[in-house]
């Protein structure tokens, strides 16, 4: 029984079709990465899973219950970190954590205090004086101090610095170890790579890919650069080979992973002197789905930009 299963989900806001037949399946005990460009419908999906938004059509089940009808019962079994954390401005951070925990059905005091320390959060400050990152920490501490079956995290680390990011990753691993399931919407690729068992990539309200990272890599081309004794010919007729061009006697090309073997068989006949093969980076994988141009992943500067972990201001 999957913990989250969504089929053909549609949600419109007036003329805007925020979700347009989205599918998502999150299995028990996995950390599932939920990726997509801004405005692709991640937060909308999550709000439907929490029974905050009403779906127009399609199926959505969470922990084998209807998220709209059984909202209150479900909420005892899950913890949520909103994408844009806002808190009661005149409560202190500590009060907000205790309030959210209590409203959810209680939290583990020892863990709460430990998390406050690890996240280096001052609980005596008023929420209105917290930065975005600190507000996020409040929501993260409140969520991880509760022992629940499912953690729903909507871009939880977009305001955290790299040190806090590491602490966050530890916490995700800890709850996973304890058997919980995590749905993690994120833009931080390193985080996804480090944490997620499986990912789903959505775009314009539809799921475009879903699977383990290895499976997704398989769908993207490998870049090959080869230097041969004799000029290479016959590449155009090989299946799965793209973008062949020569620079300074070296041949650059891209190949679908499934056809790598055939390519090597062909290259070997021309006396290979040097060969580099670069598997697709996660960035390229994303850019392929995020950008308008499916081949945009080849442009290196853009790739390294997107790959830099987003270190938020403290």
């Amino acid at each position, binding site marked *: 029984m999957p913990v989250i299963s969504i089929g053909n989900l549609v949600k419109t806001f007036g003329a805007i079709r925020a979700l347009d037949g989205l599918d998502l399946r999150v299995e028990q005990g996995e950390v599932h990465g939920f990726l997509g460009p801004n405005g692709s419908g991640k937060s909308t999906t999550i709000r439907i899973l929490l029974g905050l938004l*009403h779906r127009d059509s399609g199926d959505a089940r969470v922990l084998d219950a209807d998220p709209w009808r059984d909202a209150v019962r479900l909420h005892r079994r899950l913890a949520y970190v*909103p994408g844009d954390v*806002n808190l009661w401005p*005149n409560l*202190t951070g500590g009060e907000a954590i205790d309030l*959210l925990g209590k409203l959810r*059905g209680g939290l583990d005091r020892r863990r709460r205090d430990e998390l406050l320390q690890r996240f280096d959060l001052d*609980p005596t*400050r008023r929420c209105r*004086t917290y930065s975005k990152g600190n507000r996020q920490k409040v929501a993260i501490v409140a969520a991880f101090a509760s022992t629940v079956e499912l953690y729903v995290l909507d871009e939880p680390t977009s305001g955290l610095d790299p040190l806090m990011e590491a602490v966050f990753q530890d916490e995700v691993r800890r709850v996973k170890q304890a058997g919980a399931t995590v749905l993690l919407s994120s833009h931080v690729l390193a985080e996804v790579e480090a944490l997620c068992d499986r990912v789903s990539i959505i775009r314009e309200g539809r799921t475009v890919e879903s699977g383990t990272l290895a499976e997704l890599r398989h769908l993207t081309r490998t870049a090959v650069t080869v230097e041969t004794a004799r000029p290479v010919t016959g590449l155009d007729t090989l299946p799965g080979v793209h973008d062949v061009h020569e620079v300074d006697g070296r041949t650059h090309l891209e190949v679908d992973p499934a056809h790598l073997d055939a390519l090597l068989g062909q290259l070997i006949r021309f006396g290979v002197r040097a060969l580099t093969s670069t598997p697709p980076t996660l960035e390229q994988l994303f850019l392929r789905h995020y950008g308008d141009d499916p081949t945009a992943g080849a442009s290196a500067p853009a790739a390294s930009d997107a790959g830099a972990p987003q270190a938020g201001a403290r």
Partner: protein
Amino acid sequence: MRALTGTALLARLVLRRDRIRLAIWVLGTPLLGYALAGSVAGIYPDQAARQGYATTSASSLVARAFNGPIAGTDLGAVVVAETYVTLALIVALLSTFAVTRHTRQNEETGRAELLGASVVGRYAPLTAALLVIVAANVLAAGLLALALVGAGLPPAGSLAAAAAIGGVGVAFTAIAAVTAQLSVTSRGANALAAAAVGLSFVLRAAGDVLGEQSADGTRVQSAWPSWISPLGWGNQVRAFGGERWWVLALPVALLLAGVALAYALAERRDLGAGLIAPRRGPASGAPQLLSPAGLAWRMQRGTLLGWAVGVAVLGFSMGIAGDEFNAMIDQNPAAAEAINAMGGGANLLDAYLAAMLGLFALTIGAYVVQALLRVRGDETDGVLEAALATAVSRTRWLGTQVLAAALGAVALLLLAGVTTGLGYGLVTDDPLGQAVELGGAALLRLPALLVVAGVVTTLFGLLPRWSVVLSWTALLVFLLLGQLGAVLKLPQAALNVSPYTHVPSVPAVDPAALPLVVLTAVAAALLAAGVAGFRRRDVPS
């Protein structure tokens, strides 16, 4: 001048963001002035009536405290006495909130950071906000002058009166420009500036109470505290009573000083920082906080305390004024008739007390609207989303807010009745008896307030995006129907729209159960509709 780069652009942004608010302000103030001037002219049509009014106003300490120093028996002077304080307070608060909204609030929400990174000078945001808000005050004053002339008042006095009110707006624009630099939060900045408005009111009231009545008995010469109050300056212009134009230089001087100080403070601090360090609080939540009800109490208690102080002071003063009211009735039958139309019934003193309780019920309506609209504020801020993602049902959440607002209304009504009774009882030697009787009479107004709560809840549940505007509009309509309905001789069908119309005006008339039961039923239906709508709709929406 680099520090001012981008001012024009930002001023246009302010205009664009606030075009509706500004239009309501700039057009609404003259319209309100016109309507009030007209109704006052109807109540005091001849010299004899105005002579009586002026003499009473000049001798009554309560009238001096709340209406300011009367400046003679001209119709214009009576109009100023009856309307100046109200209009000046409205303009002062509008200017205050507008300044905060376009300065500190932008910093708080991070919008200023976005702008600061573009080509915008350090002083540009503040300057742009001040330019627009001062211009709005000047424009509103100009139109108000025209409106007063249109209502039949002499041009010089009309201009002086309108300029006096515009001057108040300008003065508080300057004060708010400074408070916006002091506090880190827009709430804090508004609270500081609003406290300045309150202090000005108290100083002016004290100065006018301590002032001297002229030999002919129709004028008051204010004492020095009025002169250190920006609200008092407007009175010292003496519109319609031998205008002193030079007094108008005071708000202009304050504006210049305020802007200079605000610039200096802005120069010394970082973006987003303030000069008043925010206080620390408890590291963990006390058990009584950790429930929807505990949270509602925590969020409301400060506001409620402020309201309680205001209501108690006002109630007590109104009660004491009951005695002076007797004297006034003897001198001005027309005013007596107006009170009678508001309060109803045969005994004029009871009519007066009933009218005061009615006014309190209307005012406390504003508390109910404000308290309930916090849920909407929480929704737009994103706080509601976090709360509803916990194991609390929507019904419980909204129900708690409604209950909290209703309990607040009960407390304030009771306080209004009891303090009015105490004040009136002190001058008639029956403080306890009157406190009990008027306390009970005040509580009979609760069903009307429950209907107000029902209206807000329904709007929140069914038309969330419009709930703020429509809730306040509804209350304003109730207020206008209650205050001007009788004067303007509106048809009963129109008056019946307001729940306040249906509350028996005890103690002027005997209490009746039926209207209260019907009002309560209407309130229950509205509340049920609101909760049902909230349960069905998207959050946030």
